[in-house]
């Protein structure tokens, strides 16, 4: 793969992954915006984006429903006559769970029993991993609907990147048949351990667990799992298909990071996991790079000289024409620029490190986005990010 343009043209699903605070939401939205400009009907699924970004895209409420971004808004991003369509959706984890239960319940009674269950209410809202699983679930649902040419998923921020890939399996683990066998038992449901049960393998474990935690969720969970009986097959089958879909050729994962040392380490770790899991990999996006401004030959040596002899810097600036104020300013200009160059050097070191650890032969797609002086929180900002993401050419810059 040589460019993001090619990914947009050939893939059906793009998943942006990475640690928190690296600009995943912005990257996902910028990719979707470009895809719409290129004529694709695209939907970006996002999790809690900045309010102004949401507003600028016309997403005012957490609807768990796709919303079309009006064409006149796209104009502000420089797309005068969009050939495609841009849709966006903010994921509501709890609603997605409820929809799933609704879909697979055999009867309204079963559905209500589950939706009203305390254990269900806990895991569907709060459980770590639930959000990740539901993001996948929604992605699958939209893909199956066939309504879109391309889906771009902005994944939830997880400190441990692994959570995301593990989520479906973990969640399905809860409903594993063997767990169900332990639970679906009338005496457990009553919250008491019957005499006969004490001799069976699983029951005493629950007794220990209950003693330790004191949680009465046991009864709730028994009821919850029983409530799911008959639905398990549907759920499990679906989780498998979600996983399979992500491994298909039409899907691609984009690893988003920033040059901060801690996020680079996480990106290296995450890339290893992606390879281990044999998930199709699209490329790297490194946001917020400070670019080296002195790449012209001889520039670095000259700058060193100027640092030693401020008069040379003043001359280069033409500061003498502007009097004392300009000369006084030149000193701060020099300090500030030196600091920026140091940042650029450090970012370059981190890039080098990231490449050496993940792609030493330089075969993958790399895109870098500079650290803008302003926040990106509207469509024109997204278009600006897009210019860098889609500046096709040599790998990286």
């Amino acid at each position, binding site marked *: 793969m040589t460019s993001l343009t090619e990914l947009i043209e050939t893939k059906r699903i793009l998943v942006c992954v990475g640690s928190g605070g690296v600009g995943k939401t912005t990257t996902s939205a910028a990719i979707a915006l470009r895809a719409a400009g290129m004529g694709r009907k695209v939907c970006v699924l996002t999790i809690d984006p900045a309010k102004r970004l949401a507003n600028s895209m016309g997403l005012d409420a957490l609807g768990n429903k796709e919303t079309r971004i009006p064409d006149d808004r796209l104009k502000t991003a420089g797309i005068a006559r969009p050939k495609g369509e841009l849709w966006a959706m903010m994921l509501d984890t709890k609603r997605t769970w409820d929809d799933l239960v609704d879909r697979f319940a055999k009867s309204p009674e079963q559905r209500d029993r589950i939706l009203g269950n305390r254990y269900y209410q806990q895991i569907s809202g*709060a459980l770590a991993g639930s959000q990740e699983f539901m993001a996948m679930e929604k992605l699958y649902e939209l893909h199956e609907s066939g309504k879109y040419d391309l889906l771009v998923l902005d994944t939830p921020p997880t400190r441990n990147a692994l959570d995301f890939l593990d989520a479906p399996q973990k969640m399905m*683990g809860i409903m594993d048949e063997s767990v169900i066998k332990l639970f679906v038992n009338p005496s457990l449901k009553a919250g008491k351990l019957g005499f006969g049960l004490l001799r069976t393998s699983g029951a005493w474990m629950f007794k220990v667990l209950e003693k330790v935690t004191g949680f009465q969720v046991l009864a709730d969970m028994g009821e919850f799992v029983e409530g799911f009986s008959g639905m398990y097959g549907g759920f499990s089958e679906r989780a498998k298909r979600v996983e399979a879909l992500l491994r298909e050729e039409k899907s691609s994962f984009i690893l988003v990071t920033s040059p901060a040392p801690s996020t680079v380490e996480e990106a290296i770790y995450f890339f290893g996991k992606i390879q281990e899991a044999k998930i199709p990999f699209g490329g790297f996006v490194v946001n917020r790079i400070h670019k080296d401004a002195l790449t012209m030959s001889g520039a670095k040596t000259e700058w060193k000289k100027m640092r030693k002899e401020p008069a040379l810097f003043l001359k280069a600036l033409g500061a003498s024409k502007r009097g004392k104020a300009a000369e006084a300013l030149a000193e701060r200009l020099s300090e500030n620029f030196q600091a920026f160059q140091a940042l650029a050097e450090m970012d370059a070191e981190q890039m080098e490190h990231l490449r050496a650890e993940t792609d030493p032969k330089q075969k993958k797609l790399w895109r870098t986005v500079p650290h803008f002086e302003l*926040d990106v929180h509207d469509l024109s900002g997204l278009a600006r990010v897009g210019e860098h993401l889609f500046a096709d050419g040599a790998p990286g810059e």
Partner: protein
Amino acid sequence: MSGLLDKRLLIFSGKGGVGKTVVSCAVAVAAARKGKRVLILEYGEDERVPGVFGAKKAGYEGARMWAGERKGDGEVWSMRLTPRDTLHEFVIRQVKFERVYHAVFENRVMKYFTTAAPGLNELVVMGKIENLSGERMKKPPKKLLKENGGEVPPEWDLIVFDAPATGHGMAFFKVPKMTMAMVKVGPLHRKAEHMWELLSDETRTSFNIVTLAEEMPINETIDLHEASKQLGLPQGTVFVNAVYPPMFAEEDEKILHQLDEDAEPLDTVQGVIARAALDAALTARGRQRLHEDQIGRLAQALKLPRIELPFVFRPRLGPEEIVGLAKELEGKLA
């Protein structure tokens, strides 16, 4: 109300990537420089605090990260709490047998349950924090005992909890109340009660938010403040991290643009350098203005004490930068 450093438990929360760990470390050092014994707690698999101090991993045992050189300086220790280690300790305390722990909690099927049990991880970790805050010195020096009126002083004067990022963060602090509601009586109910007493006690505890002076983190800060206030956590200080220093003023902008015209032509090395330096200055000015605007927005939305920490032009913050930030904090943390 007493100052932040006189509390017993400081919680730092906020959006991912805003520098919670760095701020936690800087506050810890600031307290240690006032003679306190400070313990930083991290949650989860990876450990960041030792990296900041250039120390080796602390793990669940804990290790010393920093000791002041001046007479009367205290120490900073760090400890990493994983759900697994904490659960292990918690269970062993209750059932006393390692074999029972293994049979139950390392069992494949049960593992599913414990991963899924709502709030179990958070509960045991909160319990551990409460235990640590109540711990007393094992071998108190006579002098300290005397100063303390014969009472054994606490092992840790101050605990700094580098809490998980926003979303997961609130789950932690909801857990004691949730447990109290679910388990009406017994030892666990009492334990949860103690946790909540500690968390909600404004003389001992303070819930602080770390943010950047940028759109998204500030939005999350406002939401987090609302959520934590509603829950009943004592509101502390908002730490605005990495604020651009006021290197250039408004009146400089005009000169910067003039210089852009006067500088050597762009086909010369000198011209390239001059333009790059001017660009960097305009970028710095732009970010600084953005930060001012966002801080203004924050100030309007939240009536909380606010401390700004300067942007540090270094990639990897080490002990030296942390001490620098700690000194910066000292004047501001009355």
